[in-house]
């Protein structure tokens, strides 16, 4: 006997899923914005010739890269409030966790990008009398960022998928909404099929936009697209 697919109960609960998607985008966007900024900061610290700057940055990066994100999330949500007495909403706990967690990966992307720029570019900048920070901002980073786009996109996609973990601490993201819909409708197969499709469409569109940006940048000479 073939399974009788019926999507109508799921579609009747579309508003719930839409709300879940909005929340997923909200947590992803927040973590992405803080993660990229923090990641750049961590990368610059890690590349510093001064030990007392590079070592702590390296430590943070390694700790967050080598522990499961779900453990980190639980730690920030359950353990940190006990230690320092700060109560966090699920959203804040998720934002903090995913920001730092993705920052540690973005830091490595930034570092690889910065280190891939030839020494001659530093020479050219320094020969004009630029300070280290001017050379980094005007000459090195703009080139490094272009080379980083593919790795960067991959991390952003990974981040969006990682945010599904936030459903475990009862934040109403897309996966959490899906649980609710599936329990309400007794249609888990249809519900999770729709949810998988939503993730696919959003992430696929985002990666197409990234590819477009990359092609646009490629016009100004050097780029990662050949």
């Amino acid at each position, binding site marked *: 006997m073939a399974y009788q697919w019926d999507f109508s109960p799921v579609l009747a609960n579309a508003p719930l899923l839409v709300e879940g998607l909005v929340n997923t985008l909200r947590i992803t966007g927040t973590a992405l914005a803080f993660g990229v900024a923090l990641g750049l900061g961590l990368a610059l610290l890690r590349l510093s010739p001064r030990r007392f700057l590079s070592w702590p940055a390296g430590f943070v990066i390694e700790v967050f890269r080598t522990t499961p994100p779900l453990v980190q999330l639980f730690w920030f949500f359950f353990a940190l409030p006990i230690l320092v007495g700060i109560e966090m909403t699920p959203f804040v706990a998720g934002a903090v966790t995913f920001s730092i967690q993705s920052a540690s990966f973005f830091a490595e992307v930034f570092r690889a990008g910065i280190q891939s720029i030839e020494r001659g570019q530093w020479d*050219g900048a320094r020969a004009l009398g630029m300070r280290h920070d001017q050379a980094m901002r005007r000459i090195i980073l703009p080139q490094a960022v272009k080379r980083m786009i593919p790795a960067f996109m991959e991390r952003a996609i990974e981040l969006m998928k990682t945010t599904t973990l936030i459903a475990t601490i009862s934040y109403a993201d897309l996966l959490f909404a899906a649980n609710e819909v599936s329990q309400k409708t007794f249609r888990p197969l249809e519900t999770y099929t729709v949810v998988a499709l939503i993730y696919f469409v959003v992430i696929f569109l985002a990666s197409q936009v990234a590819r477009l940006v990359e092609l646009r940048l490629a016009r100004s000479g050097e780029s990662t697209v050949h």
Partner: protein
Amino acid sequence: MTILKVTGLTKRFGNTDVLRGIDLEVARGERIAILGASGSGKSTLLRCLNFMERPGGGTIALDGQVLGREGRAGERSYPESELIQVRQRVGMVFQQFNLFPHMTAIGNVMEGLRTVRGMPKPEAEARAAKELARVGLAEKADTYPAHLSGGQKQRVAIARALAMDPEMLLFDEPTSALDPELVGEVLAVILALAEEGRTMLLVTHELGFAYHVATRVIFLADGAIHEQGPPDEVLKNPKKDRTRAFLASHKQFSF
């Protein structure tokens, strides 16, 4: 009048002594060609003069002012702020051009004026256009380096250095990375600068060019000045055997 005075300059990389005590005095308007086999330390010497490499020992004085501070153990330290001043006064042109690929030709030439000098954009643009015209590339202002030939890239790099009004120019094998047919256009630009009476130090393998453009030729061997003098002496009647052997090994040698 002396612009640059180098005393006892040494540099080592790991266990290798690349420079073993260079003494060199450069007068304003002098054009010095630095020759030597690869590994003789000629590029390192040049790179020490604008502190792309930190000198190991010895002193460098610009306009009579000794650079850096003496530390307790006798070694010198060079604060970045001082090096930034020096590099604006001593321009450098590299073998590999080192143009910024994400900026147009004029963007490259403007960059130092804008970022280092803080010059307003219209002014910097006008100045950069003038320098590009000087090297014959006015019509390539909006072209990215990827679309320029090697010779054109090097001329943009020269314009970029000139825009900062350097008192002295360092050329580190400016034509070594070029296809032979592109060497001439770059040498012509350097020759024009020489005729303006600019002070320049030039590491090169183009002996014929060195003969025509230099007021003094220095032959380096094993990190020390082996022989120096006017081009007529050093290139035509070298006194030392190693200089002679080096010149003989350059087959294209012709005046």
